């Protein structure tokens, strides 16, 4: 632990501030006194650099931790170069010469000399005089004033502190109170930055606490907590202070951070946010009882009248009440995080009620947004099941509406309210929520009376796009108002901390990730004046864009957006989001480059996220393993992986719907691969029912397609046709273009299997889907399309192989190439079989033998999957 703590909130004289004052004396020497060196600077530039440095120091004085003397001297060295010895010697001498209260009195009265008096007419030539209204001047005056306000005891304490400050620098041995921190800081070398954040980080982002990696070259753990005063003036009277703790992800287990917090609490018992940080830490490590305890503790203390000496925003009239509605809001989001939707809704309902009672509109807006999040994230089959009779915001709308419609209304109200209150971030995050909603929901008019009400059942990508664009306007607003004082302070601090740090480059390339080491993921953004929460919000919009394009079926655009996110917003966002972005990129790799590449990338990501967001990365790994096991015909392993996937989901109904759908979808596919059609169909059916119940329409399109596949494979093409058509119509109304192409392909295959007289129709369908598939489809889909195309030709009675063999052979060749990469034995065998047949017809025996041999190889591999020792499975 290398920093010195001072009590938060008020401006007090500390040894560090005295050092700054001494440096100020050197920067602007008073005329009368004689320093050991009159004007030591070799150049004006050097002098100015010191000035800049002092300006930054004074601005970052609101941090609760101040640098120790040796750190200050190191920083000084960076600034003034060779002059450093002279300056630091002077600094240490001057400080250690202060040995009695009277020395301090004299020191501060001397300081007055470097300030320009209000009527100082006589200015000696080239004397530098500080304007008393300049930043430096104000700082000096504040120091002098703070000293004058000190009682005699205070002066004695200051003297003791100066003694420790100097002694620490000389011996650089750790202070007695902080042995643990010293131990950990040497190993961890992490920089913890507590940034001012607001509710939005929670609201729009599924209560993932903001934790991310930042490794520093400097050997210290340093905290940065803004003075509460500054904090509370910050955001439109939002009185809560949600913190952002940035923790080095891989090397920061629960206890290490906990011990730091314990030290912090010991040092600053009045800093109740320590409880909040502890809450976040526990939340992060999924410790429910401890999270609950600390959350309650934080609000019991901070909302009390005596607890926290913050300056209440003058606008809120309900000061006497405290801020307990925010406690409810946080508690609700905590329950949400732990997957207790019912409790969450109860608590949020209470939050709505109390906010209304206290006329805290801001909190109300946030609470509504939180409820929207809750409703959109968890599957609710019916309102009655989950909402109590007292549920205000929903019951007021009327119970006749479906849950989706209620959500839509809530979203609109929430957005309107946030807009009215000028909560820019909330507006942006509400717009994101709206975009998310629009993405998967067919917009019906809420009231459809009369015959003229158009029933156009389609999602509106335009709306999604609009909302995303509008939410991104946020950054321009923050870009223009970068002169907020608090931001300035942060900036100065960050600048000071970056003095010793080499400017890193910001390039991340997953393409060559297999060759790079884990540092490829480590990149550091330059400090900028845009608040982290804004960046995070903006990042989320890119992530949502990636998801949207994934759903709509544009692989390149999805990839680009995920890449943008990972490169530009990786630092400013939660680790869960970063993990999501990486997941998307790796999935893309798996689909387009095969599993080997994907696993190589996964290994790197796993290293980075080894301790946190386990679930997302673990999920990805299981998905990849399952996919690969299916391709290789390892059905037992596939089933095992599938079961593991299912276990990850919470047992509570309506929670983790995504995971549950995924698990049973994969289960059905495994059964299908094992040719157990009846069971596969049963699983798919029950999945369809569940999706229908919880309104998961996009998933339903996939399930229908799977059912069609099952019937196709079981040889019951006629039964498969309606499913394929249904899936097609779902895809159409939800604008799922790639899935639609895939469904078209399945439809064509179904027609093909009905006999050669349908070959023409199938061919038309395949040709129609080809542009989409070749443009955006992955390896598997493309090969399937190639094979289907070839089959269409082959089964067309009017087609002659002898006349135009290349028309068939070329797609087959393409298909085999791609399937080799994918190691998809079943399809590859089919392609080689077709090839062999064609060569046989053509009489090209050598090629025929070659294709037949390849066919044999794949069939054998498929039949004896155990023989194959696959290193990739070992990482499982």
């Amino acid at each position: 632990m290398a920093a010195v703590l001072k009590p938060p909130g008020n401006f007090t004289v500390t040894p560090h501030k005295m050092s700054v004052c001494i440096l100020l004396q050197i920067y602007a020497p008073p005329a009368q006194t004689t320093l050991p060196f009159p004007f030591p600077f070799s150049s004006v530039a050097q002098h100015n650099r010191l000035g800049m440095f002092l300006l930054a120091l004074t601005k970052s004085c609101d941090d609760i931790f101040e640098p120790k003397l040796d750190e200050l001297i190191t920083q000084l060295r960076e600034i003034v170069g060779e002059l450093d010895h002279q300056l630091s010697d002077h600094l240490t001498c001057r400080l250690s010469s202060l040995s009695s209260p009277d020395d301090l009195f004299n020191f501060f009265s001397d300081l007055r000399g470097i300030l320009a008096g209000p009527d100082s007419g006589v200015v000696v030539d080239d004397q530098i005089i500080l304007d008393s209204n300049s930043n430096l001047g104000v700082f000096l005056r504040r120091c002098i004033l703070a000293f004058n306000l000190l009682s005699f005891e205070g002066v004695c304490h200051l003297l003791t502190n100066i003694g420790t400050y100097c002694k620490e620098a000389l011996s650089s041995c750790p202070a007695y109170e902080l042995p643990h921190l010293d131990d950990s800081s040497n190993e961890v070398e992490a920089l913890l930055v507590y940034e001012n954040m607001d509710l939005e980080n929670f609201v729009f982002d599924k209560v993932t606490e903001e934790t991310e990696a930042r490794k520093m070259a400097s050997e210290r753990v340093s905290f940065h907590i803004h003075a509460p005063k500054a904090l509370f003036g910050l955001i439109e009277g939002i009185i809560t202070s949600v913190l952002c703790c940035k923790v080095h992800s891989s090397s920061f287990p629960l206890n290490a951070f906990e011990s730091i917090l314990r030290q912090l609490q010991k040092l600053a018992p009045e800093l109740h946010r320590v409880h909040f940080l502890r809450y976040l830490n526990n939340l992060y490590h999924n410790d429910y009882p401890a999270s609950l305890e600390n959350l309650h503790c934080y609000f019991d203390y901070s909302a009390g009248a005596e607890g926290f000496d913050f300056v209440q925003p003058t606008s809120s009239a309900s000061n006497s009440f405290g801020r307990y509605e925010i406690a409810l809001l946080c508690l609700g989001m905590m329950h949400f995080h732990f997957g207790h939707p019912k409790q969450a809704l109860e608590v949020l309902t209470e939050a709505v009620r109390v906010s209304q009672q206290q006329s805290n509109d801001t909190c109300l807006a946030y609470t509504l947004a939180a409820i929207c999040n809750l409703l959109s994230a968890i599957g609710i089959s019916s309102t009655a099941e989950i909402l109590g009779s007292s549920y205000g915001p929903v019951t007021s709308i009327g119970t006749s509406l479906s849950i989706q419609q209620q959500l839509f209304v809530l979203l609109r109200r929430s957005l309107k309210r946030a807009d009215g209150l000028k909560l820019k971030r909330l507006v942006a995050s509400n717009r994101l929520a709206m975009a998310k909603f629009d993405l998967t929901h067919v917009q019906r008019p809420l009231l459809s009376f009369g015959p003229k009400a158009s029933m156009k059942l389609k999602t509106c990508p335009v709306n999604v796009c609009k909302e995303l664009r509008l939410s991104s306007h946020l950054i321009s607003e923050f870009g223009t108002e970068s002169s907020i004082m608090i931001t300035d302070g942060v900036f100065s601090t960050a600048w000071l901390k970056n003095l010793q740090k080499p400017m890193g480059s910001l390039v991340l390339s997953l393409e060559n990730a297999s060759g790079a080491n884990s540092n490829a993921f480590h990149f550091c953004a330059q400090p900028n004046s845009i608040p982290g929460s804004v960046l995070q919000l903006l990042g989320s919009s890119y992530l949502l864009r990636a998801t949207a394009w994934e759903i709509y079926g544009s692989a390149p655009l999805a990839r680009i957006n995920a890449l943008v996110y990972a490169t530009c917003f990786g630092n400013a966002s939660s680790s869960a989001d970063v993990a999501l972005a990486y997941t998307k990129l790796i999935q893309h790799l798996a689909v387009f480059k095969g599993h080997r590449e994907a696993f190589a990338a996964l290994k790197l990501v796993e290293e980075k996220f080894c301790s946190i967001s386990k679930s997302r990365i673990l999920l990805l790994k299981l998905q990849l393993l399952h996919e690969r096991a299916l391709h290789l015909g390892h059905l037992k392993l596939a089933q095992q992986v599938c079961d593991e996937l299912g276990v990850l989901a919470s047992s509570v109904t309506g929670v983790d719907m995504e995971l549950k759908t995924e698990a049973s979808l994969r289960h059905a596919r495994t059964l299908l691969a094992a040719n157990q059609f009846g069971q596969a169909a049963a699983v798919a059916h029950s999945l369809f029912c569940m999706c229908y119940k919880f309104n998961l329409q996009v998933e339903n399109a996939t399930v229908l397609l799977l059912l069609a596949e099952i019937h196709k494979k079981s040889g019951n093409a006629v039964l498969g046709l309606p499913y394929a058509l249904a899936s097609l119509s779902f895809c159409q109304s939800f604008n799922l273009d790639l899935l639609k192409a895939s469904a078209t392909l399945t439809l064509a295959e179904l027609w093909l299997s009905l006999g050669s007289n349908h070959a023409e129709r199938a061919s038309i369908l395949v040709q129609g889907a080809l542009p989409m598939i070749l443009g955006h489809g992955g390896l598997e889909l493309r090969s399937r399309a190639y094979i289907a195309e070839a089959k269409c030709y082959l089964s067309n009675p009017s087609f002659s192989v002898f006349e135009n063999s290349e028309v068939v052979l070329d797609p087959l060749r393409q298909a085999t190439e791609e399937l080799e990469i994918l190691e998809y034995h079943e399809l590859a065998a089919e392609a080689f079989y077709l090839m062999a047949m064609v060569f046989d017809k053509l009489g090209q025996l050598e090629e025929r033998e070659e294709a037949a041999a390849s066919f044999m190889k794949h069939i054998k591999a498929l039949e004896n999957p155990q023989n194959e020792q696959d290193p990739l499975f070992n990482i499982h």
Partner: protein
Amino acid sequence: MSSKESRRNELRTAIRQLSDRCLYSAAKWAAEQLVGIEQDPAKFTPSHTRFQLGSSSIRRRFRTTEIASTPTAGVSSVSTPVLEEDEAIDGDFYLLAKSYFDCREYRRAAHVLRDQTGKKAVFLRCYALYLAGEKRKEEEMIELEGPLGKSDAVNHELVCLERELSTLRKNGTVDPFGLYLYGLVLNKKGSENLARTVLVESVNSYPWNWNAWTELQSLCTTIDILNSLNLNYHWMKDFFLANAYQELRMHNESLGKYEYLQGTFSFSNYIQAQIAKAQYSLREFEQVEVIFEELLRNDPYRIEDMDMYSNVLYAKECFSTLSHLAHRVFLTDKYRPESCCIIGNYYSLKGQHEKSVVYFRRALKLNKNYLSAWTLMGHEYVEMKNTPAAVDAYRRAVDINPCDYRAWYGLGQAYEMMGMPYYALHYFRKSVFLQPNDSRLWIAMAQCYETDQLQMLEDAIKCYKRAANCNDTEAIALHQLAKLSKELKRSEEAAFYYKKDLERMEAEDREGPNLVEALLFLATYYKSQKRFEEAEIYCTRLLDYTGPEKETAKSLLRGMRKAQSGFSSIDIEHLPP
């Protein structure tokens, strides 16, 4: 020699040794127990004179056994300690240091003893340093934060003391008093396990130092820890266990121990007060009052534990006795936390909550870890509708002792008052977890579930059932259960509860609207069940009361008669002639 006599002798020696080492509160405690032993009038005079005589040979024998093992009853036949020859020169310095110490000039005392190597001198020097550090810490706390704020002030002597004492312990040149101090220092520094070990060593070799026992007790936060302690048997252990059981809320066990001890120490005010404390926790207010009255007769200037007496008086609303008590402690020593607390209670009973808060705050200024003052102050803030302040006060109480169910309950109440019943439930849950046999807590929780906002009636019923099972003196639970069952249209259950409630009211000879309500319900219920005889009984009872119920009863009766007669007439018609 009787065991009483031997204990007396042990205590006499111990008192001298303790006060010689300036462990005054331990000496005080021992002296209280000494006179608490029933005096044998026959032996009084001779023993008194015998104590004046010294015998260094016996003393030496005592000194060797003192360190080696727990003294048996025979060993304590020892008289006034006499200075040993080799300590004579050091002794002068020691006397000077002790007199400085007695004048509270701790650093000066420590300085006088800087070069002394005798065990006693080393102990006194370390102890003086420790106290000097504590004093400075207290001062610093006020300088830095103000008395009620939390503060990071530490005792700066702890590090040196720990270093020195651990070296002494390693060398084996530390006496039980030194071990006690070492344990104290370790506890302050947070090394609790080592502290426990060291304190056990100390009390095993010198069991009469009550300070060491209390320090050890503060480290026994669970029964498992307590049972794992490796303590030799000595009668002092009974005192320790009784105290430890009490702090672990095992009141009956504690009471048993104290009653056993009272066999020997029948006049001990301490034991009496502790029994009162246990009875208070068991909510036997009558007995507590009797005990305290007797205590005050014997020891009219006692202030310790009197705050508990004031709580009892408060609960029983004895205005004049409470004011009398407040006046008495005020004249005795007004700057004792207990005194301030008593005065605070008095003002609270008078409904002057602002004044009451002033005195509780003063009590907390004097001792900021005074648990009950924080809780009581929380109650006052609740009365004054200053809920944030109440929450803060309760939270501080909970942080001092997380097992204080009253403070958790207070927190729940405060949040409920603010219209946050769901949030409050968390706190009520905590409090019922700690005190599952208290019906008031269950009722409070049930009422929380019952609020208009939550309307979680099933949960409320569960809570009321628990409350009804644990001796609900005010009989709220049964009535509420009956009412809720009625509301939920479970008439059978409702009838069951109303009947029980009725039986209870009859047994306690209580009347009131609840009685009428029960009678009315039961009458209607039995009528609807066609059990007219029972219905009639209830209706007739209702006729004794005035009000609309009387009319209802009348019409019910009329209806029943009509039905009965109609029923019988039909019956008759259908009978074959």
